[in-house]
């Protein structure tokens, strides 16, 4: 029997495979789909990096800042780089910037349509 988690993972994998290769943000900045990272990335003229999760899916995705310590300039501070994590994820992930592992803890607003899915996944 397929579990809800497996079913959502399969759906997300299908949606990832059909992801539009380019999207444009509100500034008309071109953002390219990264098959490796499963996110959209675009750099504006100031060098700032814009990232976005897959929008064309019914599987909820949340962003989590990395809590690991990392060197920044001459100080060690929290990395806080944004990582996108689908609701189906369980366990640790590797931060896309500092490459250290952390465990995202879903804290989903009860009015979110994702809350019911989350509750069912936790059963």
């Amino acid at each position, binding site marked *: 029997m397929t579990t809800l988690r497996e079913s959502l993972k399969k759906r997300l994998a299908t949606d990832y495979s059909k992801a539009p290769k380019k999207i444009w943000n509100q500034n008309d900045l071109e953002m390219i789909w990264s098959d490796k990272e499963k996110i959209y990335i675009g750099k*504006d003229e100031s060098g700032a990096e*814009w990232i*976005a999760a897959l929008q064309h*899916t019914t599987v909820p995705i949340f962003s989590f800042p990395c809590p690991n310590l990392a060197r920044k300039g001459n100080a060690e501070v929290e990395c806080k780089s*944004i990582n996108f994590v689908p*609701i189906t994820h369980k366990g640790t992930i590797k931060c896309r910037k500092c490459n250290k592992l952390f465990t995202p803890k879903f804290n989903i*607003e009860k*009015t*979110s349509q994702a809350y019911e899915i989350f509750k069912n996944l936790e059963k």
Partner: protein
Amino acid sequence: MAIVEADLNYRLSGGVPNTDPNDSIGGSMSTAAGGIILTNTDNNDMNDITSDEAAAGITIYHGYFYENTNVTLTWTTPVFWIESQTSSGDTTVNIAVALEAKNLPIELLANEETSPAGVTFTAPANKAAGIAIGSLDPTENRGTWVEYIVNGGAVTVLDQYTIKAEGDTQP
């Protein structure tokens, strides 16, 4: 005729006449002409972060309202989410719906560094993870919160993020 984007406003809080995003710290929805947040406009949500604030880090809370100005149609089951996270690597944005019911003022914060009581902030990254605003009948509104976190030692950049809302409409 269906609800179109022009029927929907994202308005400041801070009182009926408020037009200053920095004073958008809860209370009543601004109904002033200049109290609408315009997409893709610098400082439409807050003033620049000072170098002292960037060095020490700061967390800012602002309240905004979604308003359906259509006089006949309901904006049905809208949700909002963070379509693009902050473009600075040193900041993060989180969102929440206000605890107060629709058409009511939201909690008035003592200042923009005070968090609203009992509100849970999250970072939904797509529509499927979006937070429900609740259907808005003609001319109704609902308060929301944005938490903007600047990490200590943040470098100076033009920082931007995108919050998107989407719902259904009758034809």
